[in-house]
């Protein structure tokens, strides 16, 4: 029987582990809703992570670092935008290129920052709430980015369903010819969505390097960018289901950490470390086997280039 206080701190770490996935996946969700498939999430997260860490170390200001990470992610995304939106190159190939480039660029930028210590983003002490037993530990013992990530879920949902520009963005993703015919500028709207996706991936990466494990290690995202892509499919392009999915995957990765530490099973740590990746495959399989329903949720113009004749 697990002690209640331990359970509370485990749940708190699940929320923290879910945060980078939540940011990156929400950004990708908006990008995909506009009809663009950007497979470069992993690369954008890495460049965001290294930029945020470097700026935080140099300026001593973590928040400026996170902003820098967001900006770096957005710049990476704009590079992808130039290739796929202006030059109409293949989105799958460009996304892969962005990830390969991001891995190299982040290793280069971070070369002189390996092994430098950094005091991570502080946990906020919310008057009255943090001290509530249990609930305070689970919900109110986090840093600013965790709350920002959660707040982005209703904001994204509201934007996509209740605002004029959200509806325009979805129209562009569902039928770019029709949106163009109605007089909306397909390409600038997609640029905006792609840049937003990059900024969010950059914040997700920044969370890893300045809050979750405040340090820089090459390829420290360890596939989270790809898991974020899988989460968007899991969520059937709905923000609230994304929140659920992010916690589920956060849970799997924490379960793996605790199983390693507590030696719950007599298996090598590497086998437990496989769990998030295997879970992704299982979840994708279960979702896809329900077939058409999940497919119908995908934006109709996802991955298709647009060229105004």
């Amino acid at each position: 029987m697990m002690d209640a206080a331990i359970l509370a701190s485990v749940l708190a770490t699940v929320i923290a582990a879910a945060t980078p996935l939540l940011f990156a996946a929400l950004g990708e969700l908006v990008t995909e809703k506009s009809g663009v498939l950007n497979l470069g999430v992993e690369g954008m997260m890495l460049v965001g992570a290294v930029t945020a860490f470097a700026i935080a170390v140099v300026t001593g200001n973590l928040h400026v670092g996170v902003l820098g990470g967001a900006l770096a992610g957005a710049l990476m995304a704009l590079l992808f935008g130039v290739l796929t939106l202006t030059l109409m190159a293949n989105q799958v190939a460009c996304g892969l290129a962005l990830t390969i480039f991001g891995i190299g660029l982040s290793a280069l930028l971070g070369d002189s920052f390996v092994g430098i210590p950094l005091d991570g983003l502080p946990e906020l002490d919310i008057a009255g709430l943090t001290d509530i037993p249990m609930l305070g530990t689970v919900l109110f013992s986090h840093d600013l980015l965790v709350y920002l990530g959660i707040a982005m879920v209703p904001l994204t949902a509201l934007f996509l369903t209740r605002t004029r520009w959200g509806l325009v963005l979805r129209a562009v993703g569902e039928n770019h010819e029709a949106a163009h015919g109605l007089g909306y500028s397909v390409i600038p709207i997609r640029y905006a969505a792609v840049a937003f996706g990059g900024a969010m991936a950059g914040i997700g990466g920044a969370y890893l390097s300045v809050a979750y494990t405040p340090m820089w290690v090459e390829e420290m995202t360890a596939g989270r960018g790809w898991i974020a892509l899988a989460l968007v499919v899991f969520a059937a392009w709905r923000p609230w289901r994304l929140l659920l999915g992010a916690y589920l995957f956060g849970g799997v990765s924490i379960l793996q950490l605790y199983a390693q530490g507590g030696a719950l099973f007599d298996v090598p740590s590497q086998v437990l470390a496989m769990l998030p990746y295997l879970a992704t495959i299982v979840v994708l399989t279960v979702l896809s086997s329900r077939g058409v329903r999940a497919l119908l949720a995908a934006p109709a113009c996802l991955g298709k280039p647009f060229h105004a004749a």
Partner: protein
Amino acid sequence: MWRLEQRSAPSVPMQVATPFIALAASVIAGGVLFTALGHPPLPALYAFFIGPVTTSYGLAELAVKATPLILCAIGLAIGFRAGVWNIGAEGQLTLGAVCGGGLAAMVFYDASGVWLLPLMLLAGAAAGLLWAAIPAFLRTRFGVNEILVSLMLTYVALLALSALVHGPWRDPTGFNFPESRFFPPDATMPLILAGTRLHLGFPLALLVALIAWYALARTILGFQLDVAGLAPRAARFAGFHPERTVWLVFLVSGALAGLAGVIEVTGPVGGQLVPVISPGYGFTAIIVAFLGRLHPVGIVLAALVVALSYLGGENAQITEGLPQAVTGVFQGFLLFFLLAADVLVRFRLRRVAHA
């Protein structure tokens, strides 16, 4: 003002020219990068692109590094032509190395005979094939995205290798290093050029490229793959089953990546299993496939260029003190510039008088 105007048919001269445009642009961008890093560009460019291949040893190393790239990229290119995205070559390569190498390290470690190496190559190819069969099965049976599955399986394969060499497969006399036993002499790649590390794997990779060229250019199979990629509906009407295409692509590319894995551990890695056996050849092969225009001959040339970026990174680190990570950035440049230049294949730039 300039506008892009769609060509009626893709330009063949541009298809040949764009890889060279991309290469030239990458070299220039590399010079800018070196300058930004505080190194005079010309000596750094020399150290990166020319220094490594000024000796016969360097040229042989180029072929050694190109070998896994050719094998992986040919498999991937077959898929990319058909619109099937196997991104997990790195995992298939790793599993090939684990199974082929495991045979020598754990089963036949005191065996000898000419049968040993061929058996290992077969085992490695079979392992890569089976690992690639998982995304093929999930895609054809349940419609699961093959990009994500093949990629997730790469992480699983890398962790499996790590678990084995840190645990049950660790050399009992190896001072607790995470390495397997050394393979017996008959389980290593024969060297074919004295004084270098050039091994039999390179001619083998060239042979694979030749066979692939024949299969793609001269058989109905190659035609089927192209139709599946360019016009999926037409392929269906012609009776080419998309499921069969997915299976074919994954099995062939998985087997080739697995083969590359065994060749690495029996050759340049040094005849044992270690925690890391590839500096990302399976991923870099994606760049090689595109740079080589998804064509076997192009892939051989592109593999040599990309192999140079590995050697150049190592050399520039030694002679110029540049971080080795410039290799990855240069490889990223190459693919970006290629994809950007490719717009000229399908579109032409046309000057318009006023907007």
